[in-house]
């Protein structure tokens, strides 16, 4: 369990660093690498999804330290004519789905077919 948590944190950190340096598209790339590397072990797709969400939560927390992220979310929600928490939720779901699906896809392809 502890090892699993440690891996999750390491993966989240990797995704945060990749996002910082390369941009949002690096999240599915890291997720795919994770899925390929951890194929057949536990649930790499779930781990990748959670790690991506955690990574972006952490980065948003850094931004929030320097400005009103909650207020911005409310404003964006207003622009989208949706509740103010929707943009923040989107900011977590989006990387989670990208990383999770990329990990799942990479893991499945690594097995090279149903018999693998």
């Amino acid at each position, binding site marked *: 369990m502890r090892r699993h948590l440690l891996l999750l944190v390491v993966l989240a950190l990797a995704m945060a660093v990749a996002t910082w340096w390369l941009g949002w598209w690096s999240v599915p790339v890291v997720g795919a690498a994770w899925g390929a590397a951890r194929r057949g072990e536990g649930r790499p797709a779930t781990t990748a999804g959670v790690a991506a969400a955690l990574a972006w939560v952490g980065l948003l927390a850094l931004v929030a330290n*320097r400005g009103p992220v909650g207020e911005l979310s409310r404003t964006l929600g207003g622009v989208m004519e949706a509740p103010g928490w929707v943009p923040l939720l989107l900011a977590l779901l989006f990387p989670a789905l990208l990383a999770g699906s990329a990990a*799942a896809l990479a893991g499945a392809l690594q097995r090279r077919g149903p018999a693998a």
Partner: protein
Amino acid sequence: MAARRRRLPAGVRYGLRIGTAAAVLGAGLVVGFRRSGPLPPLGPFLDPVHGVWAVAAQAEVPTRIAVPTLADTVRVVFDDRAVPHVFARNEADAARVLGYLHAWFRLFQLELQTRVAAGRLAEWLGPSLLGFDRQQRALALAWSADREYERLAPESRLAAVLDAYAEGVNARIAELGPRDLPLEYRLLATRPAAWQPVHTLYLMKRMGYTLAYLPDELTYERLVQAVGPAAAAALLPVNSPIQQPIVPSPRTPRVDTLILPPPVLPLPARADSAVAWDPDPDRRDASNNWVVAPWRTADGHALLAGDPHLDLSLPSIWFEAHLVVPDTFDLYGVTFPGAPLVAIGFNRNVAWSFTNTGADVLDFYEEELDDPVRPSRYRVDGAWRPLESRIERYRGPDGRVLAQDTLYVTHRGPLRRADRHARSMRWTVLDAQNVEALREAGRARSVVEWLTAMEGFRAPIQNGLVADRGGDIAVLAAGAYPIRPPGGSGLSVWDGRTSASDWQGTLPPARYPYARNPTQGFLASANQQPLDPRVDPAYLGAAWPSPWRAMRINQLLRADSSVTPDDMRRFQTDPGSARADWFVPEFLAAVEREAAAGHASEDARTAARLLAAWDRRYTRTDERAVLFEYAMEALDGRTWDEFATGPARGYSPSSTILAILLRQPANRWWDDRRTADVLETRDVVLSESLAEGYRRAVTALGPPDGGGWRWDRVRHQNIWHPLRFRALSALEIPVQGGPGLLNPSAGSGTHGASWRMVVELGPDVRAWGVYPGGQSGNPLSAWYTDRLPRWVAGELDPLPFPATPDALPADRRLAEVVAVPVPRGGS
């Protein structure tokens, strides 16, 4: 027995797993990289480092200013209202830093305004804006700006300033990293384009359109079709029947005789071809300004107040700035983001403000073309002349060409074709506007110097009120007034086949409406007819806005011979109404007469009792103004029912015409055309309108004293973000104001005082001001709407006016930035 779950074959499960993952990933990547309907690409948008969230962490004011072309060091001190005080050593550097600051605070607005004038909104917002773009380009604003810029001598001071300003704007654009992009660019998934010097002229042309595109001849043409030429001429009179001119005239205010000839009936059957009217006729751009001579003020110093009324927006159309270049200028006021000039403001000696004159500076000409579909020539004096043409291509956000038009231009101006007509337009705004005159006026050291500088101003014609520390006050309605051929009317469409129809020049400055140090000790303008036609009958325009605001401010100033700056401030949101003073007694008298004759309804008598108790003040807690306004709307509808259908469908004559009609109780205009056998008179219509207004108020708002009639629950200002996002706008703001008041609020409530300023010209110039909004265009900034509460309350902020950077009091100092020349590629 539970059914045994059938397990899918491994191959199918594998296929499903891989298919689902691929579908989710594919969908995620598609919405990540590409627009989805109104949504921007979600990847770069939601990115927590480089995406929209970075807007939350953007600085409130610049911490460094790097303009590669600066010639010298510039000190910029921000006061506690985020107003920059720019201390430069030369004029070009001041323009560079102002350009940089405009871009820093208002970049999206800067570009948006230019795109509006250029008719290039569809490139940002898609095909739904194509119609708007076509209208704008047909006006040839960009065409004329390009032409004006090409003709500008490269060595001229204006060219140098426009170039310097563009360098400042572009310096900011060049340094924009992914985290610095304003919110709107992220929502539209676009990046700012480079700023060209000519874009400033685009903005000035667009202001010209806002203030001086008054095609009254088209209105007149439809009215002629609807009610005949005699009635049409009376509905759009050349001279206001209620005279309270800007240039003081003896025995005014004065009511002149104006008989409204009856409409020609039956109406021509052209209703379906009619173009819908502006649904908000009271919106016509307006403004107030007034000056008081020292001998009428409490402290013995000249006082000036100004509040230009425009479409309100968030961010505001204005950006406050203080620009200092030693021995050249030291001026404070409001600037347009996009232009290197202080439009309204003051310097160490002089203060000035503008209202729109609304003169007739536009004419249409019916042209004869060689080919109605693909013309190449037009005929003048029997000879064919070549048409100038320019291809206009309209693109969408993806760069695809949505449509293409050809803009044709005669020697008069752009040509428009519709309904078998080919009409060219002559319009002073399309000529050189000479904004340099405004810049020159900002350097004036006295009223006389200011007036001299403004004589060169061309368009849009403005009523400039000015005062100086020496105690002089003056007004000059400056700009190019066309001289038309004798016998012609500015309200008719001219025959383009003859050069005899062309303008013969413009009035010399000596003929501009002007007054200086009048014996009454004050001057006031509120868009009313500038000259009393009994003093000077020259045709300057027609269909002047109702003079209610002018009458009210004259009344207030006449009654006060010891005016203070705070009086000036109070007057700007004065709740009194000359319009209500005129109409309320008429309603009451009509109901009384109808009641005496046994005709007044119970509702009319109840409404009259309520209205009689009203003090005619539109305060926010007032509970009777709504009854009056509803009654006025009913009166408008019942009186002008001739315009319910037909070519002038939706038209509503000004309330001045209605006021004059009140003096003609049996005029046929009072007849309600829905009642075929009855000829209504004034009293019947007034009485029934009041009853209708009462019933509407009770139905919509409840009983009169139930609290629902409070004015602040009915009348609101709505200040929209240009992209019409409610979340970025300030809506349903209660105000102390109303139709025809000094603080106007009518129709959709999108129009109002865009800047309020009071200046006292004593030994040291003192000034106060406010606009609805704040300095920043960032909706997350503390300075996006910080001034709004004080604007709503009618309060003004003291404006610090330091002579040196260090003279700004410490308790009002927010930050200081020293802008230094930075070599290209440096940091």
